[in-house]
């Protein structure tokens, strides 16, 4: 892997990790809300 490729590798990995973290956080919030609605 050339240095340029390594920079690109890290940029993409970081982007994916951020996207996945946001998706997971969103589902945590959604399931929290669903739970309250279903038991309300």
């Amino acid at each position: 892997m050339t240095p340029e490729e390594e920079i690109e590798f890290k940029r993409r990995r970081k982007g994916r990790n951020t996207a996945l973290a946001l998706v997971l956080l969103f589902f945590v919030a959604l399931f929290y809300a669903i739970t309250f609605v279903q038991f309300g």
Partner: protein
Amino acid sequence: MSDSAALYLPSDWRDFLALTKPRVMSLAIFTGLAGLLAAPGHIHPVIGFTAVLCIALGAGGAAALNQWWEADIDAAMKRTAGRPIPGGRVRKTDARDFGIALSAASVGIMGVAVNWLAAAILALSIVYYAVVYTIWLKPRTPQNIVIGGGAGAFPPMIGWVAVTGEVTLMPVLLFAIIFFWTPPHFWALALFVQTDYAKVGIPMMPVVKGEASTRRQILGYAILLLPIAGAPWFIGSTGAIYGGAAVLLSLVFVYLAALVASRRAGPGDAMKPEKRLFGFSVLYLFALFAALVADRAILGQGLFA
């Protein structure tokens, strides 16, 4: 960067987003939401949001599976050669796993949070699109667009069942409307857009049966659509707002289809009637479903009752 480097680098998250065909998904979201808002009964906004989200996730998963299966076909056609898999930005197996994960999550969440009948229809629609249409019938019959239209017809039915929990005549009619709308919509486009489906062995109607037959069938489906679009009003399930809109829109649709059916394109033809029919078909579906929601909101026991 060389091609080999592109293959071992992790895919950009935007390429996974592109696999879900966001523009197709937006139509599923709109019709699914319309079905949900038009259905009798009450659904909590959080549950309603979850139902529409699951419809969108399911549509995205099915789209990813479709691109996994058709990667070699896409690579050979100009319009699709830049998609994530033929473009070398996403591995085929990653797309397959992504599609399965999205599909499974959408069905599971729909079942747990909304109801299992809606989840079952959602699962059926994904299998219908990814397996029955993409894998089985699309490469085998020139009626593939008619069959594919069935996949696009599920969202309003799922939205409706998410509220009511049962399949009655109305959600079936909503399904039938999109089912009969799709062939004239797509074939109008196929008449004026030069595609290379023939090159990759996909039997599209204008290529297999010729232009004249395609034009006749466009009119045939448009005429069939008229009583089906009007049916929710005829059977008394909707009021005059929907009924008036459905009859008016459908008559214009038949008229524009008749113009397309009664002509032949010469060399260097501008294809204006075909483009007008295609443009109107998009407006038709949006206006019809908007009228359905407006009818219920104003005349039914909906938002203002």
